[in-house]
């Protein structure tokens, strides 16, 4: 994964970058399967490797696939990124170990979900029952976020098909790829 990320950062050919990011997502999905998070892996494979690669390719077909040459290392952004990364790693030091049964997250409502989900919803996949029923309100919010993303893209680019556009190579963030898991 580190190798693909490094290659994607180095290469100048954007088509290769898109394909490499798809490979990166696929490797991440494999990692999630190893961690027994099948639903998350499924989402990662479908969104990261599938649809975002497709949307990026569609975008590339409208623009060019060559990155403009720009190669100087900026000190301030680099130092900010390094310090933030080090702080995040420092923050993980006093976290409980992975899979620790006494971790706070494993003691709050998770045992209730695991023991009562089948009785209360009759659905074997606990992830589905938690997402759709116990945490239905959150999922509703996520759906509204996706809806808003779609509406936003429509409002920015959609309706003006007859209008003359100032420039067709406008940059548009693919902000709808917030992952739901």
């Amino acid at each position: 994964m580190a190798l693909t990320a490094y290659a994607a950062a180095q290469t100048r050919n954007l088509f290769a970058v898109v394909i490499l990011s798809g490979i990166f997502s696929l490797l991440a999905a494999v990692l999630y399967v190893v961690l027994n998070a099948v639903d998350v892996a499924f989402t990662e494979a479908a969104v990261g490797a599938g649809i975002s690669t497709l949307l990026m390719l569609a975008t590339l077909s409208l623009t060019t696939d060559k990155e403009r040459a720009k190669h100087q290392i900026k000190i301030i952004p680099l130092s900010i990124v390094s310090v933030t990364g080090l702080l995040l790693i420092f923050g993980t030091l006093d976290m409980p170990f992975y899979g620790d049964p006494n971790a706070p997250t494993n003691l709050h409502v998770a045992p209730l979900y695991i023991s009562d989900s089948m009785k209360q919803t009759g659905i074997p996949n606990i992830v589905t029952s938690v997402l759709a029923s116990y945490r239905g309100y959150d999922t509703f919010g996520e759906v509204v976020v996706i809806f808003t993303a779609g509406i936003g893209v429509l409002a920015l680019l959609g309706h003006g098909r007859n209008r003359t556009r100032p420039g067709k190579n406008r940059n548009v963030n693919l902000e709808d790829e917030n992952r739901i898991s």
Partner: protein
Amino acid sequence: MTRHSILRITAKFMIPYILLFALYVQFHGDFGPGGGFQAGVIFASGFILYGLIFGIENARRVLPARVTRVLLAVGVLLFGGTGVISFFFGHNFLDYSVLLKNSVSGQHLGIFLVELGVGITVSATMITIFYVFASQDK
């Protein structure tokens, strides 16, 4: 893309299975991994593949942009409407236990409807974004 016969034949072969797999993920999400979000994304990617290979005009003929815009809202309304129904039985928002007499099957029905709403919205959003992007060069 009329020249790439390998791409065309392979895509023609794959797309029905992609769409079928999306429906499987949608309706089997209760029992295996997956659910509305993943199903919507898979369905949309199958459709976008069609659009990329066979041209955006053909894709628009299959599923007009007007329809996807309506579906965008239908999914959210289906989700929200399922939640609102429980108000009429004096329960909380999104409490599906009251949808049927048996609370367990009520939950089951509620989750089914909600996941369907998620799937419709997600796939409609993705297809809409693809349409909007693809028609930029006109």
